[in-house]
């Protein structure tokens, strides 16, 4: 169990999230992808905090922050999603292009 292991784990998580975000058309899946990426970042922070700089617990604080932010973000995201679904009866990322320039 060393730093590299955790970094690889984080990379894996992040890549999975990225693939989900990039390739899935359903916005719920995209949301899941985003959550995965955030968690990858959290893992990274914790890993560095544990192995490299254990004394100031900055990493843990930031992870808490990320969790908080993620919760808020999910709430907002889901709210938008609900409204979108009500209005258009679909949550397809490729079809929702109202904000086209």
């Amino acid at each position, binding site marked *: 169990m060393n730093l590299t292991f955790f970094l690889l784990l984080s990379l894996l998580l992040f890549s999975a999230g990225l693939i989900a*975000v990039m390739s899935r058309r359903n916005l719920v899946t995209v949301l899941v992808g985003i959550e995965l990426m955030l968690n990858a970042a959290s893992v990274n922070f914790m890993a560095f905090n544990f192995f490299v700089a254990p004394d100031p617990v900055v990493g843990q604080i930031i992870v808490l922050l990320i969790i908080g932010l993620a919760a808020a973000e999910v709430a907002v995201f889901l709210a938008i999603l609900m409204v979108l679904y009500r209005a258009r009866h679909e949550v397809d990322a*490729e079809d929702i292009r109202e*904000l086209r*320039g």
Partner: protein
Amino acid sequence: MSPTLLVLLTIFAPFVAFGISLVFLMRRPVLAQGVALAGGAVSVLAALLLLAGGPAEPVRHLWFASGNFQLQFGFVFDGLSLAFGAVVAVIAFCIQVYSIGYMHHDPGRTRYFAMLGLFGWSMLGFVYSVDLLQAFIFWELVGLASFFLIGFWYEKPEAIAAAKKAFIMTRVGDVGLFIGVLMILNLTGISDIPALLDAETGLLAHVSGGTLALIMMLLFMGIAGKSAQFPLHTWLPDAMEGPTPVSALLHSATMVAAGVFLFARLHPLFLASEVVVVTVLAVALFTAILSSTIALVERDIKRVLAYSSIGQLGFMLAALAAGSLFAGVLHLILHAVFKALLFLCAGSYIHRFETNDMEEIGRLGARRMRWTTAGLLAGGGALAGIPPLAGFFSKEEVLAAISYAGYTAFWLVALLAAFLTAYYTFRMIFLVTLPARMEQGAKDAAGDSPWVMLVPMAVLTAGAVLGGLMMGPLGGLLGLEVPSHSLISMLPALGAVAVGVGLAWWDFGRARAPRRGFVEALGPLHTLFVNKWYVDDFYRATFGRAVHAVSRLLQKTEEKGLDGGFDNAAISTSRLGGLIARLQNGWVQSYIASVILIVALAGFYLGIR
């Protein structure tokens, strides 16, 4: 009363009448007439009292100060101002009285009399001005008043076109005058006329040679505009579109007289430059010939008189340029009297017969209007220079002045002009009084204009007949010796006049006269004269077109170039925005892809560094 108070009364009485009429009396023309007459009467009385009081020291009051540049406005009471001021006030008053009869049917009388007040005020203010810039201000106001009066019947397109032409052409001259005055101010720092004339500290002490000539030429430009000298003379005949009493005022004591008066005011300065003297002589006498030749073939009685004014103004300027202040001012004053008379007579005919055509006026029985015809004879005789009428004396003085100054060639030209003047004047008189046949019933149409029109004419007739008597007093006022001439020296001029009158008699007067002028046999020259030497056409073809072309060009520049350019810049910016906006395709995942791509590239770049 002090001269200051009197001069204020003289100048401002018409102005007060003007203000009261315009503000309060627009709907009460009769009252406005009364106010105008009262103003005119006060002005005449005050001017005459001033004249009786004799010359006095000028008064000044600080009017304008910007740093070192200070203007002291005030009034000058030398012989020139006093004499001419009185003439202006009297003639203006005569014309006001006459206008009561002439304009009695016009609904816009209030405006008319108000504008006469404005005219009187500005001209009198000009005459008594002590400061060159003050004079310029009143000079411009004179132009404004004549604009309004020429265009008085503003519903007539010809009238407003004439008014505009008068304003613009005099303005062209005024630009020269203005630049000249400003140059004087810049070079000397003074604009006070007596101070400028001072030989020790005045203009001549500051500038000389080319600069002086330039300044005086610029001033002369203004004078040429106002006094209708070539090449700025063409507005005056058109100004006939105004009511006839206005023409009488315009051609005699105001407007056109302003130019000559300014020349007389600054007389020593003009004489200081030989170039200017010769130029003025040449321009003035050329103008005299030009205008006289056009008058030879003109049928409109007012236009004949207008061209004669241009010629006589040329005479005055020539006399002044030749060095004789006395001759110039004498002719200015006497001409004012008899020219006003002639216009009033013409107005009397026009008022009655409602035509300007001389032959028609004659045919309709002009001769039966005895008093008017008597006035026409007196005025015409004076204009032609028949002894012992007023014009004879002044014209003698003018010719003598040119001859004594040694300009023989100019003198010959002036003689020719005198001959032409006599000829066309008597052509007019014969056409009006000795028609080939009179209209049926014209004999019964006896009676003359109403007395309000006849009385002013009678006053002016007296002036035109007896004007010669004022040579002595005028000389005294101006502080100049009245030159005396032998009979021999008068002979050439008298001869020229006699030939002119005789020829007119031969062509138009005698029983079996051909009633065609000798010029009509001259072919191309006749065409030239009839077309007024093509000056107007030339202006239309050159300046008129040029102004239009430039303004059209600049308008295009504005639309397509400047304004359009900025518009295009704005539009292009907006288009560029549109292009960039296309990247914003609304597909969230492509945004994320580009973010990641950019981050990856940045990381790569940082990594290889």
